[in-house]
């Protein structure tokens, strides 16, 4: 899966939780879920769970720990899909 495809899919995953919809339209690898998209920290777990469902993967706590931005989410998903 290429970078653009992943970011486009992730944008739809985070859409219901993003309080800054303008930043959502400008989403890129460097976008921070909390600081840029203003996702509530209690909703970050929903992003993690939705990503798990979408790609049929299990994200460990140690991985979730750094899943604060698009790049980190992409790295985690990419490595998980490679393991499959």
């Amino acid at each position: 899966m290429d970078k653009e495809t992943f970011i486009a899919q992730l944008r739809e995953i985070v859409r219901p939780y993003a309080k800054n919809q303008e930043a959502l339209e400008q989403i890129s690898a460097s976008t921070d879920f909390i600081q840029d998209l203003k996702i509530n920290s209690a909703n970050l777990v929903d992003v993690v769970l939705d990503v798990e469902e979408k790609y049929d993967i299990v994200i460990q706590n140690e991985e979730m720990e750094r899943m604060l931005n698009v790049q980190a989410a992409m790295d985690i998903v990419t490595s998980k899909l490679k393991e499959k």
Partner: protein
Amino acid sequence: MIGNDIVDLYLAEKESRCHRKGFLDKLFTPAEKSIIENATAPLTMIWLLWSCKEAAYKIVHRATRHRTYAPQKFECHLTNVSGNQATGTVIHDLQPYYFLSTGIGSCIHTRAAVSHTLLQQTAAYTLYHRTPDYAALLHTQGILQPGQLFWKDADGIPYIRDSYSRDVPVSVSHHGKYVGMVMSTE
């Protein structure tokens, strides 16, 4: 070092599906899940524990400047729950952070500190407000005096700069219709 967190219970209920598969497993340790299951009001307990984790996280973040999303590494231990107040500790890396949570209106406001003594030397302000302008709110509450400045550093950590250019740590939080602020009174 102090921290605080506020949860608007109406908004939390609207924004989070606490019953979805994996939600509690990712956020809470087995001991915390047991506290939630045995609580008379499990949903309120979820948000009480969450606000404690967040308040302690803010202290750790202020100290380390390192951002993480590791809620299980902050484990809540309730010491006393009575009426609309709860006290206890959050353990992170073997270090206890002392908290005091208060239920006010439809929100839970938690303040935390690195020691029990420091916790008692804090003042907390729980305000009902739609749009938070912390500087304006601090001014309205008489906390921010003329000549003082509310500012945040590059890591987003807030301070009040007094007229002698000394920076006093302050912790701010906003969720839904509520704003919480905590500062040291020493």
